[in-house]
């Protein structure tokens, strides 16, 4: 979720720093809403095992007749449902 206000920290050429707190613009609010709507994608991406680990899971599932890989993917999807920011 975006912060309530936009806190802009500006670094000036003379080394000084100023901070300004302003309302988000309509364009920024729209961008934030779009980002929030897609946040589940990022959450899933962060939660999925690496592709190396996934391939390893699939190999051993084939050898052992287990569903470790499918279970792991399903859990990530369940924990991070679409549209849930």
């Amino acid at each position, binding site marked *: 979720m*975006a912060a309530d206000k936009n806190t802009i920290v500006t670094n*000036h*050429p003379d080394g000084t720093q100023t901070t300004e707190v302003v309302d988000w613009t309509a364009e*920024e609010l729209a961008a934030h809403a*779009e980002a929030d709507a897609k*946040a589940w*994608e990022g*959450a899933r991406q962060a939660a999925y095992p*690496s592709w190396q680990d996934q391939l390893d899971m699939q190999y051993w599932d084939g050898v052992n007749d287990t569903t470790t890989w499918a279970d792991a993917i399903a859990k990530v999807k369940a924990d991070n449902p679409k549209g849930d*920011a």
Partner: protein
Amino acid sequence: MATIVNGSTGVSQVQETVTLKVISTGSVPSLEAKGTSGVTSGYLKLNCSENSHGIKLLGPPHSAGADYTLTFPNNDGDAGQFLQSNGSGVMSWAAAGGGGVTYLGTMNTTSGTEQQIASLDLTDVNILLFVYNQVSHTSGSAQRLTLGIGGNTLYGWGNTISAAQGLAGMLQIDLRNNIGAWEMSQQTPITSGNQWASSYAGHIIYSLGNNLRASSNTTVKVGMSGATFDNGSVNVYGLN
């Protein structure tokens, strides 16, 4: 004026208080600093006011076979300019040549929702380089990056970054065609030792809408979908 003349070879010594004004002709120099065989090329020495220090203007060695004329510029040039030759020994003042990397500033992404650097002169910059150093945010949900150059903002580029992750990597934008690319990793921030994390890559077409290389007063900014920064920094460099 006391001048000592050494026979037919010319002046060998001039009294120190004498000011010389000698004339050059089309074929004869006003002064000729002769060398000594096997010892040194000819040189002129310019002393300090106390005559305790001095610099030498020394000719090339005999082995160079050098016979050329350097003609100085008609004026004293502008600040920061360098002397250049036209290939025939005629010198002029010129700006420093291209190349090199200029450090433009750092945005400490430890606070605020947007960090920016103001008043950047990008007129000589061909490539703008952003180096992200473990940038993270406090938002409860994963967020994408925001990039602003000269008042134009690109929202939501790159992979999403969760609050627990830090983002490290580079984004470079070619200001001549507004196309960029990035290589980033997003992992739990590395806090000690020598560690590594996997990375992601992608490219950007950035619709600047104007020619930033024509501006000497440009602001660049970074954000993360309005989330509040809580770690890291972004260094900005210009490749000339």
